[in-house]
């Protein structure tokens, strides 16, 4: 036993009175924290609290608890810093982690309240009255032209640019095949198709079996250009150029060679077993005019039939960058806040770079309005959207729609154990191992995702009804219906909202 080894975070307790020694837990634990000897033996140091053993034990005999080990209290050297230093002292590497930042920065959503109607403007009952969530994503012309038609009526002369129709303003954010399993990709695509929204391929291309879902997929073109070919562009509903990601702004991607299976190799168009490296910048984009060239190259390739979106991480200067992106010709911007998830990112970047989605979307919406170009493009916001009220608040701050990633994964089993980067996901989500992938049943996952979309959509209708409105676009940018609680003046100004009572 190495006395310098890192002390365990969790403690696995097996109730020997209940345990029948079936060994299921040992099979289920992909992290090797339990093995069967004459009894079930747990290695606490390996436990990540993914709860797979707890959930699958037929006897309900297992409990995972926070390890009671006392860390001598210290105001500066919290347990987290001690653990991080031990990890680095052992490996000499940058710390790598999955999901969004694990640090508890203030979440502004939790300091924003939504208005409701009383007397002077009646609330609307969504059970009795129509309530519209339909949202369009794409470019809008600056005006419409009408001409007198043959029969004397008025006809539209303007030809509208391509727009994708969403039945609800909730989309699935980019998660690549490679980071997540094919089963996860399929469940996302299935439920997007069933509920009239879109999923996003992420930067790893599309497996051949995903082609049929094209009309409900936004395909991503990222710096590695993995899986990008004419077929991929043509089958999609829209194309997204990925510049950055909220969890790791300014950082590329790295899919370890072990995860590059034959199927991944075929999809990504790289040799099996080699690392898939997405460079930090696109090597053909070193300025805004370069971005414009790629936007128009993709539009030319798809004959101007698909919206081309640009995804950026929410960084300090996000407003000005967004303005440039609109002027570069993008039809929509995806802003990913720094609480956004990741399959793998250096923790130092994930936990310290970028800004949250709430001030980012407010700043972008403001800036585009000041320049009179807000209504020409769509804004999709993502990065730590946890519930329907977060969706409503994001739209009221200025977004057209949102994208959810972690929330969707939680719906299909993710326990937020933050081990995505290990490829050992015990729930079959963030892994390529066949024996683990088998654990995710596509039909069950599809149903659960449909349910999540339904539940949030119903709640959005309730929110709209309480606000006395029956269409989602009336909430868009309607900041007067938000109030801040416990926020300082400056933050209120940035968000463009008044304090509660004001």
């Amino acid at each position, binding site marked *: 036993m190495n006395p310098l080894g890192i002390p365990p975070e969790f403690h696995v307790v097996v109730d020997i009175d209940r345990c029948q020694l079936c060994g299921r837990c040992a099979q289920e634990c992909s992290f090797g924290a339990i093995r069967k000897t004459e009894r079930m033996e747990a290695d606490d140091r390996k436990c990540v609290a993914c709860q797979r053993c707890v959930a699958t034990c037929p006897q309900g005999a297992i409990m995972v608890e926070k390890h009671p080990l006392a860390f001598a209290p210290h105001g500066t050297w919290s347990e987290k810093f001690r653990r991080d230093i031990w990890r680095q002292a052992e490996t000499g590497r940058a710390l790598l982690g999955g999901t969004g930042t694990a640090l508890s920065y203030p979440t502004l959503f939790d300091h924003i309240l939504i208005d409701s109607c009383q007397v002077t*403007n009646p609330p609307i009952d969504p059970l009795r009255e129509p309530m519209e969530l339909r949202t369009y994503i794409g470019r809008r012309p600056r005006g419409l032209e009408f001409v007198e038609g043959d029969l004397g009526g008025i006809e539209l002369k*303007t030809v509208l640019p391509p727009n994708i129709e969403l039945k609800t303003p909730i989309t699935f954010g980019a998660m690549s095949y490679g980071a997540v399993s094919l089963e996860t990709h399929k469940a996302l695509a299935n439920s997007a198709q069933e509920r009239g929204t879109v999923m996003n391929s992420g930067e790893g291309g599309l497996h051949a079996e995903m082609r049929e879902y094209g009309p409900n997929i936004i395909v991503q073109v990222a710096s590695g250009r993995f899986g990008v070919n004419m077929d991929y562009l043509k089958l999609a509903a829209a194309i997204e150029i990925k510049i950055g990601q909220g969890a790791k702004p300014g950082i590329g991607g790295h899919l370890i060679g072990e995860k590059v299976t034959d199927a991944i190799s075929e999809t990504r168009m790289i040799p099996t077993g080699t690392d898939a490296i997405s460079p930090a910048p696109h090597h053909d984009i070193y300025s805004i005019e370069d971005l414009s060239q790629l936007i128009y190259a993709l539009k030319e390739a798809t004959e101007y039939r698909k919206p081309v979106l640009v995804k950026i991480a929410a960084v300090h200067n996000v407003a000005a960058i967004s303005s440039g992106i609109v002027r570069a010709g993008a039809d929509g911007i995806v802003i990913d806040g720094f609480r956004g998830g990741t399959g793998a990112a250096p923790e130092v970047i994930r936990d310290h770079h970028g800004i949250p989605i709430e001030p980012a979307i407010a700043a972008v919406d403001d800036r585009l309005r000041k320049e009179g170009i807000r209504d020409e493009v769509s804004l999709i916001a993502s990065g730590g959207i946890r519930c329907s009220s977060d969706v409503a608040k994001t739209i009221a701050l200025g977004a057209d729609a949102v994208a959810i990633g972690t929330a969707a994964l939680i719906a299909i089993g993710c326990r937020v154990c933050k081990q995505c980067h290990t490829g050992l996901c015990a729930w079959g989500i963030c892994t390529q191992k066949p024996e683990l992938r088998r654990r995710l049943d596509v039909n069950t996952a599809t149903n659960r995702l449909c349910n999540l979309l339904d539940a949030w959509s119903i709640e959005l209708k309730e929110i709209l009804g309480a606000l006395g409105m029956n269409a989602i676009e009336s909430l868009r940018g309607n900041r007067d219906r938000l109030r801040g609680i416990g926020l300082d003046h400056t933050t209120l100004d940035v968000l463009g909202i008044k304090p509660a009572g004001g």
Partner: protein
Amino acid sequence: MLVSPRERKEDALSRGFRIHDGCGVAGIHSEKGRRIPGSRIRKALDAMLPRYNGLGAGYAGYGIYPRYPDCYAIHLILDDEDSLRKAGELLSGSVNIQREEEIPTRSRTLEDPPLLRRFFIKPPEQTRGLPIVDPDSYITNLVMAMNSGVKGCFVMSSGKNMGVFKGVGYPGDVADFYSIEDYQASLWLGHGRFPTNSPGWWGGAHPFNILGWSVVHNGEISSYDANRRFLEQYGYRCMLQTDTELVAYMLDFLNRKQGMPLELACRALAPPFWDKLEGMTTAQAEALRAIRLVYPNAMLNGPFSIIIGTNQNGNAMIGLTDRIKLRPLVAARRGEETYIASEECAIRSVCGQPDELWMPRAGEPVISIATGEPL
């Protein structure tokens, strides 16, 4: 504690609050342009007395200044001599004033009236050495500048051959104050207020106007901030702290600036539900879909019934409710006259037996267009 009108304005502007009201609205339009005495619109409003609480009323008359048909008639509410002087300076520095006069009033019928002035003006040929190609926009900008830049000054109306008369009181009091019965108009709008959270101030009464657009409104626009922030991108500044002013600006923007036909512009304010358009391939359905897609924040959401008057591009009166008709609106025809009001009693009190009387469907505009004039 009594609060002066100026303090109320300053308070409203600094806190950015909006005044929520319930109200009664009425409009009469002669499509042949026959001149209707102001006593009739007053009578229509008087029939709906329980809809008001005496904290605001007003009228808009079209065709009331036949001697100055080509002049913009600028009606001003002014706190004091100082604001009058500053407003006068701004006007004489930017336009040609053809005539300036007090708006005639019987001053003892309403409490604490502000100064009321009207200017008949024409825009100059050029400004800063450049010709003015769009005089309407020049006037719009001037109105925005006066409302936001001149302390104690509100522009009641700014259209040609029309004017708004409004104040704090019941509709009958306001009619007496301005001697509304002395004016003859081919189109009248009238309004009585029931504001819920303020003592009422002159600038906050209806109608609201910009250029030839006037709006009387019963309701509350729940989507207000989405609409306001949309309009601000195009230079409109919502200064009067009520929902209604933005209705006038929205129509000005859609119809005059964007060139959208009037009926479609009304449809943009209360667009049909998506489901209604599903599967429809008519030219109109295509147009309605495109309008909602391109102008999502032109939609006014929340309970409203409004009557719009315009002589901006032809003479017309329009009645419109929100998409699920949460506020009442009735329309009637008799001969060449169209009547629109919150309640049937208002219509019957002034037209006797109408040829037809109906409840307009939710979101479907009732449009009365003057014959022989383009729209």
